[in-house]
């Protein structure tokens, strides 16, 4: 089954090399199957939504991509732009390759928003610069601009604990702007937000993909897990359905209708009836 779907730009003939290649990567936690062997190719500029019920392996897949987990088959089963994130030492190269906005709790509550945003630069900074920055913040203007872009410039000196969930998510996105990686991962970035806030945060994330400090050109790629069909259709180019740590479908985001999503989430009622999903996978191939 070919899941490669190059972004068509005019009359391009040869498909470009995928930016992200996953070759039968799997993860077992003790006796728990986190992710069954899975293969995927994702091209630069794609915006991929991961859907699936809790426990289907979305977080595991994203953490494998971020290099925060090592795949059981070895580090080379996840390749981004020719490199394996789990093999890279901390530092500039890893920081510029891939970054992740996590579900919740991922700001340091004791540091002001400014330093949480500047933490996105840690991979780029020397230790001396980082120490100095705690006293005399470096790149303060860039942090201010990032916060202005996410609409909370006035919160720069607040503690994250005083912010709402949506505002905290914006701080995490501003931190991602400072990190500025090629591949942006987001684990349920809108899970705890009301629909209006979710729409705004989604727009920011998508804006991040098409944002370049220098020329505004887009070569970034977004991979995010979420559950809302309307957001997926509006903001993504491709949607991958996971269930019990396997890929159930891989569709252009526009073809995702609510029925497909309902089936993915409701299968628990009659577990031996997996025909419809097999059908979906076939339709994709």
């Amino acid at each position, binding site marked *: 089954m070919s899941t490669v779907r190059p972004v068509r730009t005019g009359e391009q003939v040869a498909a470009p090399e995928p930016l992200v290649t996953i070759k039968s990567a799997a993860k077992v936690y003790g006796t728990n199957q986190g992710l069954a062997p899975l293969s995927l190719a994702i091209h630069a500029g794609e915006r991929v939504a991961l859907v699936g019920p809790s426990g289907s392996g979305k977080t595991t897949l994203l953490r494998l991509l971020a290099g925060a987990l090592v795949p059981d088959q070895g580090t080379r089963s996840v390749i981004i732009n020719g490199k394996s994130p789990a093999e890279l030492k*901390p530092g500039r190269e890893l920081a*510029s390759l891939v*970054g992740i906005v996590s579900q*919740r*709790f991922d700001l*340091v509550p004791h540091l002001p928003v400014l330093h949480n945003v500047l933490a996105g630069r840690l991979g780029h900074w020397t230790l001396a610069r980082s120490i100095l920055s705690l006293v005399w913040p470096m790149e303060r203007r860039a942090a201010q601009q990032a916060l202005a872009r996410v609409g909370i410039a006035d919160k720069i000196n607040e503690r994250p604990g005083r912010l709402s969930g949506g505002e905290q998510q914006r701080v995490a996105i501003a931190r991602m702007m400072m990190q500025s990686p090629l591949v942006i991962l987001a684990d349920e970035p809108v899970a705890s937000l009301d629909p209006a806030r979710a729409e705004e945060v989604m727009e920011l994330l998508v804006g991040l993909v098409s944002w370049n400090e220098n020329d505004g050109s887009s070569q970034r790629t977004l991979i995010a897990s979420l559950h809302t069909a309307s957001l997926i259709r509006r903001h993504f180019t491709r949607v991958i359905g996971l269930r019990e740590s396997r890929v159930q479908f891989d569709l252009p985001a526009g073809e995702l209708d609510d029925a497909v999503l309902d089936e993915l989430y409701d299968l628990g009622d009659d577990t031996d009836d997996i025909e419809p999903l097999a059908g979906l996978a076939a339709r994709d191939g």
Partner: protein
Amino acid sequence: MSLRRLQNWLTGPRLLTLGIVFALAWSLSRVDWQQPIGHTGGGGAALQVLLALFPPELSQEFLRICVVASWHTLAYAIAGMSIAVALGLPLGVLASGVLASSPDGSETRRRTLMASVRFLLAAMRSVHELVWVLLFVAAVGLSPMAAILAMAIPYAGILGRIYAEQLQDVPAEPVAALRTTGASSAHILLYGYIPMALPDLLSYTFYRLECGIRAAAIMSFVGIDGIGFQIELSLADLLFRQVWTLLIFLVALVVAVDWWSSRVRRSMAY
């Protein structure tokens, strides 16, 4: 309960607890409960000591002695604590293992390092400051440095051990998020572990400073000026009114540190 169930129930920690309970019970059974607790005629002596509190010695001359002694005690305690923190923090960081927890780091190397630093910390604190001060006085004579070093060593051992635990107890999610920004372990220590543990680290350090003041007072019994030394002199002359004044100064010092620490902690609340 079958023998098998009993065997399963008797795990290492439970055996240890049982052992300690038995030891306690045995030692209580050895106490001769027939003996009176105080010595004969103790009632009258106790009354005399107590009455000396009304009033304590408040002559200007003696108050000046008290102020100087308190100042010395506080200075030794703060100097000793400063060295203890300067030693204990880096050792605690090493013992916590947070510097070497990147996914590719060698697990055996990390565990060996953690275990050896923990051993060093345990060795430092297993000898009491009073023993250290006798050793140092024997080595370098009656100098304030003897008291300061005697306090710094065991206190660094205690601080390092508690710091290590407080660093390990930091929430994992923000740390994991920092790691995905490409930050090294040293960066994460500065931007994650230390800021998140800071309220606990400070609170425990202040508590230890209080203990340090008591320890510095006691250590001066060996003959270095301080509240303890003055208490010893007054006791030798049976001047209980002076002893009370000195004790009041000691309490005031500890209360002042407690007040300072709560001020600092309140200013850090987030």
